[in-house]
């Protein structure tokens, strides 16, 4: 196991190296960064001094080396546009993105896995087919459109809808169901971490963005769990479990579900990366003050240091999550825990 983890760790380093190379190349491709950093009125001498100070006169591999060393120590340079350290800017916005991503990942798992199990077990049932059809529509709807639709229904329509009297018993006020559609709501600072998870307001503000962000992953997980369930239910050990007379619940949720977990963990791990990336869109729709929104502004303004740092950060998350996934395999699958040499002789 240790050897395996070390191997994966080296692979991760390689990935980070390539991503760093790409980030570094972006600076080179755009042209002279000095022009991006100074105004028209800066003299040639000042520019030359800046070039020297930034190390732009060094050979390219030396510059790349400095870039990596700086990145490892958390220095991603100054934003062209804001003239502030990129690392600080990212860190300020990191909590918003991470909380949003975490909540939507949980949402997609908690809803997606049971739906997948259900559709796998009742493959010809009406509800199962309905879920599958809806999931196809869910995949076809672009994330931003889902966000807009949610805002339209839960913010616009709910706010304008008149109260609905239910006979003479009570009245439903749709405006009470209205959800906040912009920003994080009330937040609380814990150290440098600004959280929206501790206030009702902040939690309410999370509902629509996390549904928007999680819906695609939800359909993906549902379909994956479904097809894995169908696969596992055909295996000999499930047949044998039935032949042993085990209760359906034990077979479906004990034996079958556990065997679908390995692929689900893999995909979930991969998807966390894409959740963070798709947060760019969700954050834009809901004006969520996260890293994604900042990255988008950086793209629009060609603020390469932010783009490069964001790319490296995402890659770092990706690599870390993959290492965690690898270790989770060991928890789930006993076949990986024991050395292969321990198999007993023929009997």
């Amino acid at each position, binding site marked *: 196991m240790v050897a395996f983890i070390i191997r994966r760790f080296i692979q991760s380093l390689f*990935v980070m190296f*390539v*991503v760093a190379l790409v980030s570094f190349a*972006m600076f080179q*491709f*755009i*042209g*002279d960064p000095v*022009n991006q950093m100074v105004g028209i009125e800066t003299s040639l001498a000042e520019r030359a001094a800046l070039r020297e100070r930034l190390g732009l006169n060094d050979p390219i591999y030396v510059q790349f080396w400095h870039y990596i060393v700086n990145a490892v120590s958390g220095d991603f340079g100054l934003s062209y546009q804001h003239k502030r350290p990129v690392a600080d800017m990212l860190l300020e916005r990191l909590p918003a993105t991470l909380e949003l991503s975490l909540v939507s990942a949980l949402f997609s798992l908690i809803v997606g896995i049971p739906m997948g199990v259900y559709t796998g077990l009742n493959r010809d049932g009406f509800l199962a087919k309905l879920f599958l059809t809806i999931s*196809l*529509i869910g*995949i*076809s*709807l*672009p*994330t*931003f*459109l889902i966000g*807009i*639709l949610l*805002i*339209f229904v839960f*913010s*616009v329509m709910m706010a*304008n809808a008149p109260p609905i009297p239910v006979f003479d018993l009570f009245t439903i006020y749709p405006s009470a169901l209205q959800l906040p559609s912009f920003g994080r709501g009330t937040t609380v600072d814990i150290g440098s971490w600004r959280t929206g998870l501790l206030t009702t307001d902040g939690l309410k503000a999370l509902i629509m963005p996390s549904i928007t962000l999680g819906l695609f992953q939800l359909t993906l997980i549902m379909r994956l769990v479904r097809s894995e369930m169908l696969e596992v239910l055909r295996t000999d050990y499930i047949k044998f479990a039935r032949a042993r007379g085990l209760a359906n619940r034990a077979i479906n949720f004990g034996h079958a579900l556990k065997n679908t977990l390995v692929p689900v963990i893999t995909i979930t791990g*991969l998807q966390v*990366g*894409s959740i963070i*990336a*798709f947060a*760019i*869109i969700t954050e*834009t*729709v809901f004006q969520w003050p996260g890293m994604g929104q900042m*990255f*988008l502004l*950086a*793209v*629009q303004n*060609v603020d*390469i240091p932010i*783009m490069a740092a964001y*790319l490296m950060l*995402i*890659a770092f998350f*990706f690599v870390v999550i993959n290492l965690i996934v690898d270790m989770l395999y060991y928890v789930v699958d006993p076949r990986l825990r024991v050395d292969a040499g321990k198999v007993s002789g023929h009997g």
Partner: protein
Amino acid sequence: MADARMPTPAPGSVAVPTARPGLADGVHRFFDSDVWFSFKRSPITIGAAAVTLLYFVMAVFGPWIAPHDPFDLAKLDLLDSLIPPAWMADGEARFPLGTDDQGRDLLSAIIYGSRVSLVIGFASVLLSMVIGIGLGLISGFVGGAIDAFIMRMAEIQLSFPAILVALLINGVIIGYFKTHPEWQVDQVTLAYVVLVLSIGLSNWVQYARTVRGSTLVERNKEYVQAAHVIGIHPAMIMWRHILPNVMGPVLVIATIQLALAVITEATLSFLGVGVPPTEPSLGTLIRVGNDYLFSGEWWVTIFPGAALAILVLAVNLLGDWLRDALNPKLR
């Protein structure tokens, strides 16, 4: 499909590279095949095909179909702005789906917008297909260090979502043109080029992986070996013999990728790094309309949104069906 009915070449009759089926033969076989049969039996697929066809017709004949020319800024009248759909109280018959903030007829804008979206979608699918097939063929056929390198890159790129890669490429290319003013390009052309490049370059991996896999299988087959032995150039072998064999899966990927490309284009345009509002695509229309959602002019964003969703859904359904039809093993 891949059962005993497939004719197996008799041993000894190995060197028959010229005896591969031609195109006409292929077309004939298509209508005789299980694929056509399963198409006829699936009403959803027929519906999806009809809708897709409708969009294609709209895209091609847009200028003749659309009641107005939404790209002609001179004809727009701000007095016509934000008129609701025809069936609503303040609606007007000349604008069936209402107008946007510029006084543009939404129906015409949607027709033209679909055209823009589909053109960019097709162009970028074509680009990623060419890159992906090329790299996949080279990777599978040449093997060795080149193969390892290409596949490693593919793996790394694949671990990043396409939309992120597209945004990065988009930012870099825009930055390049900003800092290199010697390239004289107008804004709309630039937007098209940037979109096609960024979407195309972010989606080649799937083609490359599939083609490489099939190439590895085909490469070791006897007819390829035989062609190799009698001195046919490797490029010729790939072109004539390997490529036709990988077209099935490539077609499936291309269909699904078309839906993805349309979504990506719309997303980029919605995020403000795509097609400019002067000649809007569906995504741009939604972006523009989004600002009016709260003031009650919902139609400006909901109609283009629905048009986009229907197009993508139809193409996705087609892709789904095609995948199952060409690969019965997947149920």
